[in-house]
């Protein structure tokens, strides 16, 4: 068919697909724009380097801290905190959320409580956690847990609740018992949505990292950026932020791969 639509029409049509090349170009252009803008503001001394380091300085710092192993060390500590908090939270929220979405008798008592807690700012609990748990890694894990668990619970119970009733009904007429329906039907049916929920909440877990390392941490990406703030090492803060973003991107991609492996039937 002749190409009757111009490139401009295609770009401005709602929901229309654009060529893969164009999409990549646009994505790259965005990064160039952001980094270019940063370079312009810093190298051009529009903003003093004390507040905005040059990309070169940040790269140099990254190189230096990679060489002496400190970047790796802090990244590892942070990754450990985030992953442990996230895993502990998921291990409880997935089964509990499934129950909550499946049984009204579990939903009725839990939902009001969870919806109350989930709007409380995590930061307000940091002093409590320090009192209760101390200043070890457990306290940081608790912050990540607290930030993700209640959100996960609500979202996963929604995943379970949106499983088609007729799918469960069909399983009954094939010999599934009521007590088996949760694990034999509702769990696998909700699995793609659950994995999407985990991917999204994993991102939230990373965003709580700095809050978790705000007080009483002695290592981690959040800790070094707080320390850098006191010493006006803006380049270190920039590096830490970039590292967190990059780690988030990696875990996000990992979850996409896991989802396509574990649930290949779901588009």
């Amino acid at each position, binding site marked *: 068919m002749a190409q009757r639509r111009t490139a401009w029409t295609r770009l401005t049509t709602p929901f229309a697909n654009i060529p893969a090349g164009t999409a990549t170009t646009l994505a790259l252009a965005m990064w160039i724009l952001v980094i270019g803008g940063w370079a312009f503001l810093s190298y051009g001394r529009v903003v003093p380097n004390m507040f905005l380091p040059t990309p070169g300085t940040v790269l140099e710092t990254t190189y230096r801290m990679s060489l002496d192993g400190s970047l790796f060390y802090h990244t590892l500590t942070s990754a450990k905190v985030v992953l442990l908090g996230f895993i502990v939270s998921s291990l409880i929220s997935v089964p509990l959320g499934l129950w909550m979405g499946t049984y009204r008798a579990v939903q009725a008592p839990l939902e009001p409580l969870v919806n109350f807690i989930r709007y409380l700012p995590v930061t307000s609990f940091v002093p409590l956690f320090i009192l209760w748990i101390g200043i070890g890694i457990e306290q940081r894990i608790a912050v990540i847990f607290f930030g993700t668990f209640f959100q996960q619970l609500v979202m996963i119970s929604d995943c379970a609740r949106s499983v*088609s009733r007729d799918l469960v*009904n069909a399983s*009954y*007429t094939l010999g599934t018992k009521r007590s088996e329906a949760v694990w034999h039907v509702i769990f696998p*049916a909700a699995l793609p949505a659950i994995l999407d929920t985990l991917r999204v909440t994993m991102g939230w877990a990373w965003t709580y990292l700095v809050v978790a390392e705000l007080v009483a941490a002695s290592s981690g990406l959040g800790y070094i950026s707080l320390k850098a703030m006191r010493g006006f090492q803006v380049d270190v803060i920039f590096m830490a932020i970039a590292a967190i973003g990059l780690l988030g991107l990696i875990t996000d991609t990992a979850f996409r791969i896991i989802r396509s492996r574990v649930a290949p*039937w779901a588009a």
Partner: protein
Amino acid sequence: MTETLKANNPAGTAPGDPRSAGTTMAVEDVTLRYSDANGVLALDDVSLKVARNEFCVIVGPSGCGKSSLLYLAAGLNDATSGSIKVDGREVIEPGPDRGMVFQSYTLFPWLTVRANIEYGPKRKGLPAEQRKQIVDQYLNEVGLAPFADHYPAQLSGGMKQRVAIARALANDPAVLLMDEPFGALDSQTRGTMQKLLLRVWERQQKTVLFVTHDIDEALVLGDRVLVMTARPGKIKAEIKVDIPRPRSMDVILEPDFIALKRRILGLLHDEIDEDH
């Protein structure tokens, strides 16, 4: 008391009732009132019997309660009063003796076609060898052997319903309940599916209770057609379909067929006129 009887025990039919010998399913004075605020009377004192190996069709306008009746028979919902017995056993909960094919697609999306059909036999605890034999038989029966390892998302609507039929039959149910199974398909696919269902039914000899709003479909498939009225749902008429089998799709052009169709249309039109 009736619960203690075995489902596949022919002696399980109520003793002393000679008619029950050939009856697979008996619906007796079933009334269903929805327990919501409006308290709509969905089914009003419905009684019917389905004979062994009979293809019984319920036809009626949408909202007449025909699907509700099927859900009651499956044990997926409770009647307000009355009873439903299958092979003499009172229906109190869903079970594999009452297979069901739904209008919506209900294949398990995480299982392949083969695993979907195998689901029931697996729940029953049949050995792998026997399961494989059953699955292969029904895959061939519905002509989907080449798609055995596909996931439901890779199938067309008609193919999905073929698997759903195979899956229900693989469990060897006493009665097969079908709730407008071809309702979501285009008319050509529907014709193909009707032909396939007839062929499978003629070979397998199953008791079927089939619900539809399509009069042609009811007459092409059924031995007997029950015409249902709406609000409250009641069985208005019973029509024997004496069209010889095996039936082809051309049967819809024959005078006998057209006469029966005219009768049902008349019954349903009365219904619509009363409504407005």
